[in-house]
């Protein structure tokens, strides 16, 4: 098992290296000069040249690339061209904000998606089944920014139930410790703030959860239908077990494996795919951080941001693969 993990981690190295290289080349292929963007429309040619020199942008690309790699190896992700802050310290609050939102959305997606899928499979071809699958289809197809704005309009403006942007009530800001506000507020015993933070999570969480919820529901349904037709389920039913027990105890465990794969992939997607949600809900997360960096041609931030997201993506997949062995004892990695 440890051997397997070691091997998988070794495999990561060429994948991530290839990634950095690709990202590095492609972002430099986009027209737009960071020095020009930083100095603004009024910059003189001299000032731009001086800034390029200072930022090391006039070195040949391969020199820049190896400098960047050297930094990565020593744990230095570089410095933002725009804010001149070290990225490693600058990135954490954004990353934490996205994690909190993505995990919250994933929990919603798993609870709603898995249960909708089970019930759909259990009562196949019932009105619930059809309804759930139509809703899932709509959920997959709905543009997230439209859904987000509609949510804001309905729950924020018309009903006034929920806040529509940011992570906290700015008039009573959370003191950040870990930057996971749900945890920070609990650590400080501020339950009132905890509720406020939770409320802020709801709308963007639901918006972000729609697509994975729909995908998980469809996957669970398909996989459950398959398992329900298998021998052991028939045996369990024949022994007089209650349908509920059969479904939730025997069938579900076997049906979860493909669902878990989808969960892993979707979690990765949420990390990178939160840009629109983060923009609509003014959520200061990693998606917006990278998106804005692209607008500013802030090369180090784009590179390191994508690198970190990719790293997390592959790590989540590794964890998912290891979870298979927990769920299904037939699977072993040797």
């Amino acid at each position, binding site marked *: 098992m440890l051997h397997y993990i070691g091997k998988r981690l070794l495999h990561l190295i060429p994948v991530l290296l290839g990634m950095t290289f690709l*990202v590095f080349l*492609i*972002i430099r292929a*986009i*027209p*737009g*000069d960071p020095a*020009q*963007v930083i*100095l*603004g*429309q*009024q*910059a*003189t*040619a*001299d*000032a731009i040249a*001086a800034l390029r020199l200072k930022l090391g942008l006039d070195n040949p690309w391969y020199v820049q690339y190896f400098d960047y790699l050297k930094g990565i190896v020593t744990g230095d992700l570089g410095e933002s061209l725009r*804010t*001149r802050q070290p990225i490693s310290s600058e990135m954490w*609050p*954004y990353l934490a904000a996205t994690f909190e939102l993505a995990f919250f959305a994933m929990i919603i997606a798993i609870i709603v998606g898995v249960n909708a899928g089970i019930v759909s499979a259990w009562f196949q071809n019932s009105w619930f089944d059809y309804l759930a699958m139509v809703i899932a289809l709509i959920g997959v197809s709905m543009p997230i*920014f439209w859904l987000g*704005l509609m949510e*804001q*309009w309905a729950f*924020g403006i018309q009903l*006034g139930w929920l*806040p*529509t*942007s*940011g*992570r906290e009530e*700015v*008039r009573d*800001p959370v003191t950040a410790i870990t930057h996971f506000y749900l945890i920070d507020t609990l650590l400080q015993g501020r339950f009132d703030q905890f509720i406020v933070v939770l409320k802020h999570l709801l709308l963007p969480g639901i918006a972000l959860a729609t697509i994975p919820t729909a995908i998980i529901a469809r996957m669970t349904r398909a996989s459950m239908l398959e398992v329900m037709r298998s021998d052991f389920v028939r045996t369990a039913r024949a022994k007089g077990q209650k349908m509920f027990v059969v479904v939730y105890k025997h069938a579900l465990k076997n049906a979860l494996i493909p669902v878990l*794969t989808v969960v892993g*992939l979707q979690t*990765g997607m949420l990390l990178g795919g939160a*840009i*629109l949600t983060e*923009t*609509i809900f*003014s959520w*200061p997360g990693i998606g*917006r951080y*990278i*998106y*804005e960096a*692209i*607008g*500013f041609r802030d090369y180090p931030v*784009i590179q390191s941001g*994508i690198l970190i*997201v*990719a790293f997390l*993506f592959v790590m989540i*997949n590794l964890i998912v*693969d290891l979870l298979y062995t927990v769920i299904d004892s037939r699977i072993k990695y040797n």
Partner: protein
Amino acid sequence: MRKGKLYLVSLMMLLVMSLFLAACGADDEETSSSETSNDSSTNTDSSTTDNSSSTTPQVLVFGRGADSVSLDPGIVTDGESFKVTQNLFETLLNFGEQDTTINPGLAKEWEVSEDGLTYTFQLQEGVKFHDGTDFNAEAVIKNINRWKGGKEEDFYYFNSMFKAEGEDIIKDVTAEGDYTVVFTLSRPQAPFLKNLAMSPFGIGSPTAFEAAGDKFGDNPVGTGPFKFTEWKRNDSITIEKFEDYWQEGLPKLDKVIFRSIPDNSARLNELMAGNIDLADGINPSDGKTVEGDSALQLIERPSMNIGYLGLTNTRAPFDNKLVRQAVNYAIDKQAIVDAFFEGRAEVAANPMPPSISGYNDAISPYPYDPEKAKSLLAEAGYDGKEIELWAMPVPRPYMPDGAKVAEVIQKNLEDVGIPSKIVTFEWATYLEKANNGEADAFMLGWTGDNGDADNFIYTLLDKDNIGSNNYAYYTNEEVHSLLIQAQSETDENVRNDLYKKAQEIIHDDAPWVPLAHSTPLLAAKAGVKGFLPHPTGSDKLDNVSME
């Protein structure tokens, strides 16, 4: 392993998606993403003034489109940074409440020598920086020397305003006693006082910036009505009342929180939901919604901008003056203003707005006259080749909807026989390519920095600025000599005549189609009082109160 393949594919998808976003600037309409480009953009409104005080802490939450880059005003160029530093720092001189006249600031009086080379300032006494350091002549000198000694790429605005041909315009700054500062210039500079009033020249505490070095922007210390409290990047900046502020009874607010809400519609939603008190960057199309809501007020920022269609003068067919004039006749500017600015703009005649001293009001805009345009094109021998029409990808106060305005222009051009293809790029790419002279016709605009004619005409249309802001690659020697002369002319009337003459020549040369001077919009809760938005986009909040 099927699964291994699947996740590799997904990883590639993730990568491709993020790069795809990079390459084609996602969804510009939705997000007014921040960006540098001095167009110290954003919007506003005007409100009545009367003040109230109450015992509950007065907190104002100001929603805006993007976060600041740094809070050291000397090193930044973006409007979102100045919006905050304007309240933390003060300048030697102030602009008027809603104009760019010169008023006392940290300097209460000043004298200018006959030859325009010596400026003597009497400073306010008893002023303290937020860290307790005394404000005096020495502090002013240290600030000037910090900017002067810095590199051009660090103190961009100082270099752009106070250096010419590599030479320092401010030759020397000396103290005569604790509260008198004497500036000696190497050459007369007409807009010198106006330049000093610009946000980038806010005076910082020498104690603080000497200790902090290049980290001064993370913990800024000035003499302003508010002092810095906290910055959550990309989210919010909090500033609070400075108890020892030298002006009695100010500021009226206890705390101001600047929140970054990138999406214009989301920002308005937040205001309507009551989570913020004031929002800038209101779309002209949302103006009526705000006006129809009794809980809100619409506030107009005095206009100091120009939106234009630039014609690259070095590229065919626009290397021919007759073709450029024809395009000016072909475009129905009034229709554009009515349709896309909701009437909150005036049609432009000159490359600067009428509020600027030196504006030539004898010039009227080219009338909409397609027949005249056709005959000019025939005279020019125009070959009917398709041109590229570049549409701005981001909304700006001077151009709320580039894509739609481009469609109207395309139709106008087609009517007179100029076929065109609309193209657009992500903003940074757009600026770079236009700057390289790769566009045929392109939309752009400008918001003034200091309310001086030089900051419009010389900056945008002088041959010295080809490669920076003269995107149209317009060159005219006569205009150049008029503008250079005007820079050091200290007699206001003579100077205005020079600019008027330059505008006549420019009008005839038609390097652009000037489109509109827009009125940017803000919205606030009805209870926000005393907020007077400034044409430069840097708003002072010391007089604002909440009911």
